[in-house]
């Protein structure tokens, strides 16, 4: 989504009603984030909306982008948010060999998620397709990518072929490097 760099156009203040709706949407989508929402978006704060190409909206607080979404799709957290609250997002882990490809923006293939160095949630805590997930990496503490799960995690284990997670935002991409002034 952000493989190419881009320059954000104008920044507009978010209406308070829209901001309230956004808050509920965030807590709906990431229930684990509910206890921290006041820390992430303080009650009296003023969020900004930055419009990016291809109908992508970025929601920023001051100079930090917190969330972004395409048109009216699911909200994705910025990686810095994931780094701050890693326990609030469902996380998968990839093996070491896949890191390089992820950091150059490749789609995440199943074998990178099923090899010995990788980790998927157990059967009872299966994550369904269409969920927004954070991707960690073998031997690393921080997440390196935010993506959209394309297959149920159980299906990834059994099929083990094709695209498992669609890359949306990764370390060092256009959004990561975007400078908000």
């Amino acid at each position: 989504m952000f493989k190419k760099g881009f320059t954000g156009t104008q920044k507009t203040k978010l209406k308070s009603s829209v901001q309230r709706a956004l808050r509920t949407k965030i807590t709906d989508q990431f229930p684990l984030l509910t206890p921290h929402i006041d820390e992430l978006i303080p009650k009296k704060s003023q969020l900004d909306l930055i419009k990016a190409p291809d109908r992508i909206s970025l929601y920023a607080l001051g100079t930090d982008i917190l969330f972004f979404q395409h048109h009216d799709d699911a909200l994705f957290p910025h990686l810095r948010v994931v780094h701050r609250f890693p326990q609030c997002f469902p996380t998968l882990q990839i093996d070491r060999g896949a890191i390089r490809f992820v950091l150059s923006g490749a789609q995440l293939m199943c074998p990178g998620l099923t090899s010995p160095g990788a980790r998927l949630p157990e059967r009872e805590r299966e994550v369904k397709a269409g969920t927004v997930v954070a991707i960690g990496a073998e031997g690393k503490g921080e997440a390196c990518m935010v993506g959209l799960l394309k297959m149920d995690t159980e299906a990834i284990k059994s099929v083990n072929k094709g695209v498992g997670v669609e890359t949306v935002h990764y370390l060092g991409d256009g959004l990561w490097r975007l400078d908000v002034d």
Partner: protein
Amino acid sequence: MADNNNNEEAGAAAPQEPQARIVLYCGVCTLPPEYCEFGSSAKKCKEWLEENHPDLVASVYNTEAVEAAMSHLTVDALARAEKAEQAAEKKAIKETAKAERELAKKLSSKIVLKRVERAKRKHVIVVTGLEAFGLDLKKVAKDFGKKFACGSSVTKGAAAGQDEIVVQGDLSDDILEYIEEKYPEVPVDNIEQVEEKKKKKSEGP
């Protein structure tokens, strides 16, 4: 400090009260330091970390863990990994060379403030060469207009395909001063003031 690192590495072991973790980012490539090795400026990143956070170097550049991870790969995969590693190295060298070239270009590129006569005793200043310093011409033009209360516009591909800013008013010296003050990344010595002579006037004494 060492204990803190361990907490940071463990991720979930963050303290309970102010919940957000503070993550350190590399000053060179802006990634978390543990991902520096995959960037194009790995060497510089390491130097930066050694200088600014010497206590972290050992945990981030932990070769033992890497080797342990490599050991459970098959021979075939190992060979492939090595190949990829080499390719990445080559790429890194290329990138650094490119960055150096760009820097050299930046240092050698000139900014020209040209004074052009429009009507009798009326002048405009044509500024060229600012884009080499990564400045957004449109924004700069707007700033000039605001600062000097005059018309200021960007002409795309005017002379020799170069974009230029046209400032209406005889402001050559003021612009020079303003650039010097507002954009410290532009070396002052590279700014040149010239005057376009009318064709009628002949050169020389």
